[in-house]
């Protein structure tokens, strides 16, 4: 698990494989194809690659039109812009018509580091989660990102796939499939359940190892499918542990924490705490420095887990 790879690399592998297996797959880009890597799709399939320049709103409308003609467009650019600038297009032209559009939000969370607050997508999951018909996948490593891209092909209607820029540990071998609506139980635990997605999954595993040394048995759920949430897995684990820490590289409002809290509030109210951005913008710095400053770390997860168990 120690080899590092950026999740965006999995996105490129995924769309290339999808493009080879399915001639209806097309890619729409917004002048960042060399940044997120989808330019290689354009080199292999020039007819099925549309770079529309810096125009997120048009990109999503084009995607809707192509989907109406039976194509499966992957629309990719930085998550902060695609989910924000083009939100109304995603709402009306994509979700309302329930079209098979796949939206790739690159540079999710603080992973983009030095570019700073304007480029750190910290609200995208919340913006997508409120939309009817939308499904959301937040993969934790490059292999899972590739699997998420392939899983999205099976879905009916729109899917948002969020991935990051900086290298993260490989947790998956590449054989595991992603299923929309299903999370993965990565560690069994009896005392507390850590629920995470994206870059916070490997940090949650690290936190579980630290907690184990301290005599605390922490389970880890990789909730790759933020919407629909894997309710069964979540409730099953929480029934056992009775306490939950949610960790996400996103605002506390509207993302995975809210999805988990909404479910548990109705089905199994238990003590719950969160490691996430607390209603603030990010800042420039290396991804590790930014995580440290905003408390998006394994030690923050450990701290919250110990605190919740001592309540």
């Amino acid at each position, binding site marked *: 698990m120690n080899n590092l790879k950026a999740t965006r690399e999995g996105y490129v592998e995924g769309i290339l494989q999808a493009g080879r297996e399915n001639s209806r797959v097309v890619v729409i880009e917004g002048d960042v194809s060399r940044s997120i890597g989808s330019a290689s799709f354009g080199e292999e399939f020039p007819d099925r690659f*549309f770079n529309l320049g810096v*125009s997120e709103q048009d990109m999503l409308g084009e995607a809707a039109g*192509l989907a*109406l*003609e039976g*194509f499966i467009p992957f629309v990719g650019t930085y998550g902060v812009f695609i989910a924000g600038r083009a939100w109304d297009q995603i709402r009306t*032209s994509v979700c309302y018509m329930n079209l098979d559009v796949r939206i790739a939000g690159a540079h999710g969370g603080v992973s983009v580091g030095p570019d700073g607050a304007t480029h750190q997508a910290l609200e995208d999951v919340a913006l997508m989660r409120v939309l009817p018909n939308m499904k959301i996948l937040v993969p934790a490593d490059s292999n899972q990102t590739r699997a998420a891209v392939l899983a999205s092909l099976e879905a009916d209607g729109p899917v948002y796939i969020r991935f990051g820029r900086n290298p993260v540990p490989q947790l998956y071998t590449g054989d595991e499939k992603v299923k929309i609506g299903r999370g993965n139980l990565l560690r069994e635990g009896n005392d507390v359940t850590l629920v995470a997605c994206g870059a916070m999954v490997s940090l949650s595993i690290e936190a579980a190892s630290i907690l184990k040394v301290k005599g605390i048995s922490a389970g880890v759920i990789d909730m790759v499918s933020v919407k629909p949430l894997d309710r069964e897995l979540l409730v099953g684990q929480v029934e056992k542990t009775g306490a939950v820490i949610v960790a996400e590289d996103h605002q506390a409002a509207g993302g995975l924490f809210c999805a988990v809290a909404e479910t548990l509030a109705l089905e199994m109210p238990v003590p719950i705490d969160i490691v996430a951005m607390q209603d603030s913008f990010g800042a420039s710095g290396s991804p590790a420095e930014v995580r440290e400053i905003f408390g998006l770390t394994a030690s923050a997860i450990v701290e919250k887990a110990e605190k919740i168990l001592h309540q």
Partner: protein
Amino acid sequence: MLDNAQMQDLALLVRLDVIEMIRAAGSGHPGGSFSSVEILVELYWNVMNIRPEEPRWEGRDRFILSKGHACPALYSVLARRGYFDPTELMTLRKLGSRLQGHPNMHDLPGLDASTGSLGQGLSIACGIAHGIRLDDRKSRVFCLLGDGELQEGSIWEAAMTASHYNLKHLTAIVDRNRVQLDGPVSEVMEIEPLVDKWLAFGWDVIVAEGHSIPSLEKAFEHCGEAPFPSVIIADTVKGKGVSFMENTCLWHGRCPDEDEYAAAVREIREGLS
């Protein structure tokens, strides 16, 4: 094909439908519906290759009503063209109706997209045009825009895309009625010079009289001749056909009371041959 007099009568019947529908609904947008009538009638009877009995026929020409609030006119045209029973028109905007306040393609046969949020239709039309070209099909794509709608920046993103990719089988029609919800377009936010703007964006530009069937016919015949997308700037009158509704923003989105309704119906009927 219908002759000019028949087409003019058809346009009046559509206007009657629109006023009846909006009255039955208690709300709706008469002004921008009336300005679009001849454009829609010309498209659906004389221009587009369609099969009303087979609404999803792959070889059909596509139509996107980007100015979705003009849907009463479109619904009337679709019903009269045979897509569904005209008696359903009076369910406009009512609970459970397939005739939603703005078009929902999943409800009603004959709609090629759901629209209503301004500024999105031209991008959808470009995507459809790309898809048709990728499949090497021959369909054409038409997109009706409001002139106030051209204040949306996303329209100009799509305008760039269409000319950059030489989508010559795409035709946009601008319903230039010069009035928007809050007042004259020139006072709210000037969009002129439109001909120069579209030319600068790389489009073939044709100006037509938007309430003249022969003028529209000539304009549509010209479309597709250039190796780039075409736009017909159709000069129209907001509220056309009912004198007290013409050229005013007051009837952008208002339902007539009983006296106004009677006066409107009387005036439209007088025009029937």
